């Protein structure tokens, strides 16, 4: 497999039937969206945090397809003692496969510096986990600023975003999220179809913020089930009772995940602004992203009146 070549016929990730989709179409849609975003934000390069997991590996693949490997920089940001060796091997394998430049930077000294500055962090694993995710975000943005004209590509998928299984301004701190409308299972499926290594798309997902914790151990259900639950709740808007029957789960379980969607709403939105004036940003003042470029170009003089006959 190469980034440019045709993926080989091979094994594919077993996708639950509800989530079946035309992966080639979705692939081309995402490529177009990435190209559009770069073009219209005045950038030509992409910085991606590559963890060795399936989301960031597929995102990297799509970024390379979109703008070419010379315009993509991957950063592997491990933490000694927490990040498993196989993630490093997989990150290197994926970057090598795609021919992308891989920067490796240990975050342990930075984590230690924060722990020294705020001693209580050592006793609060959640707070510390979020600090780690935000350290990675800072490093990605620093790299983007240093190389210039670069955008940070966020690699969150729809499952994580809906459940709020992200760190605000950490892994969810990014300029755009091309695979954010694909469920984890769909990401794994597309990764298998484009020919990424099997161990990457079969690997149990984990944010690797706390040693030994996998996504399933923290979320309580495997993604195969969660994705179907989310699909029925969000895409089909089924009530919890009906979903519980379809998935043979206790209704309390479905309710719990349904509530996670509600409670994490704030993570998916720009911070709300208190309304004072008449043209409040985002509430009244609603502008497209592309406008930045437009303003420079679209200045023409008027010489006709606007009368309708």
């Amino acid at each position: 497999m190469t980034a440019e070549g045709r993926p080989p016929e091979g094994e594919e990730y077993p996708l639950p039937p509800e989530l079946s989709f035309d992966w080639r179409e979705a692939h081309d849609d995402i490529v177009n969206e990435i190209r559009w975003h770069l073009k219209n934000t005045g950038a030509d390069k992409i910085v991606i945090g590559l963890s060795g997991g399936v989301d960031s590996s597929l995102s990297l693949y799509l970024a390379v397809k979109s703008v070419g490997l010379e315009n993509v920089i991957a950063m592997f940001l491990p933490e000694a003692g927490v990040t498993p060796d196989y993630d490093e091997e997989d990150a290197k394998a994926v970057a090598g496969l795609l021919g992308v430049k891989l920067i490796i930077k240990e975050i342990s000294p930075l984590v230690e510096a924060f722990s020294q500055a705020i001693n209580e962090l050592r006793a609060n694993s959640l707070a510390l986990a979020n600090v780690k995710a935000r350290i990675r975000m800072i490093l990605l943005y620093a790299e983007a600023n240093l190389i210039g004209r670069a955008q940070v590509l966020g690699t969150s998928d729809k499952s994580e975003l809906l459940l709020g299984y992200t760190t605000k301004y950490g892994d969810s701190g990014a300029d755009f999220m091309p695979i954010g409308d694909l469920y984890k299972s769909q990401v794994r499926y597309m990764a298998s179809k484009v020919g990424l290594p099997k161990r990457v798309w079969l690997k149990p997902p984990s944010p690797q913020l706390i040693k030994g914790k996998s996504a399933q151990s923290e979320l309580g259900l495997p993604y195969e089930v969660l994705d179907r639950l989310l699909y029925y709740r969000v895409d089909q808007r089924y009530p919890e009772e009906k979903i519980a029957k379809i998935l043979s789960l206790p209704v309390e379980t479905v309710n719990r995940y349904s509530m996670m969607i509600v409670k994490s709403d704030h993570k998916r939105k720009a911070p709300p602004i208190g309304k004072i004036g008449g043209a409040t940003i985002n509430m009244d003042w609603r502008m497209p992203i592309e406008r930045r470029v437009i303003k420079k170009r679209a200045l023409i003089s008027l010489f006709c009146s606007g009368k309708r006959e």
Partner: protein
Amino acid sequence: MAVAETVRIALAQIGPKMGDVKGNFEKIRAYTEKAMAAGADVVVFPELATAGYLSQGIFFDVAEKLNSGLKALADVANGISVVLGLVEEDEMGILYNSAMILRNGEVVKGTWQGRKVSSYRKLYLPTYGMFEESRWFTPGSGVPVYELDSKAGSFKGAIVICEDYWQPLTVRIAALRGAQVIFAIASSPKTLQKPKMTHSLLVARAIENTSYVVFVNQAGSQDMVNFWGGSEIIDFEGNTVVSAPLREEALVIGDVDLYRERKYREINPMLKEERAEVIEDYESAFAEMRRSYQS
């Protein structure tokens, strides 16, 4: 003028840049000239071709900049009718998601309930999901029919805009007013299901109204949304006459055979069969539905 038997139509599947009125008009002009060179009688552009679709707050700026571009385009359109989706601002400062037809330096007038009108204003403004058209635009009040010239004679056409063809009545009204060709212009955002659904829907509109449907969609991306293109001419039996590629900008030319269409209406008399009493019952059913929502 004689009644046209065949008309050559160019589908100008462009991807306008949001708010870039000048650049968009340059592109529209270039496509119009190419269509003229190909001998087209009509060139059809997508919904909001001057503005881009997801332009939100800059629709106001776009409307202000419209007129000079329109005049220049009309002057270029010698012997060709340019069907153009645009943002229209009336003298009161109200915006409409409209379409106009330009030809020989003029805005071609349509006929609506005995009156002459210079634009078609979209009737159904989608305001759900990702759509927020009612926030910016005011809906129109009816479907005018246009008497259009071609090299072979005159024919009748009408315009519907995107959501309008998801509602069967707009196209029906156009057909009842005598439209032989329905210009269905769109800015349709791509989802994985949308191209197939839209095609099926337009085939139904063409068959049930025994009319040619000329579908022209935007192509390209705006704000991380893809507009899928896939413009096509569908005949009254639901066959695709010509089609444009998905996603990419393109100019595709096709002929419509209006003689065949008229003869076909003898075989499949969908319009002859229509009854006003049914529409009255439709009104009644609609009123009942709204009342039942209230109770």
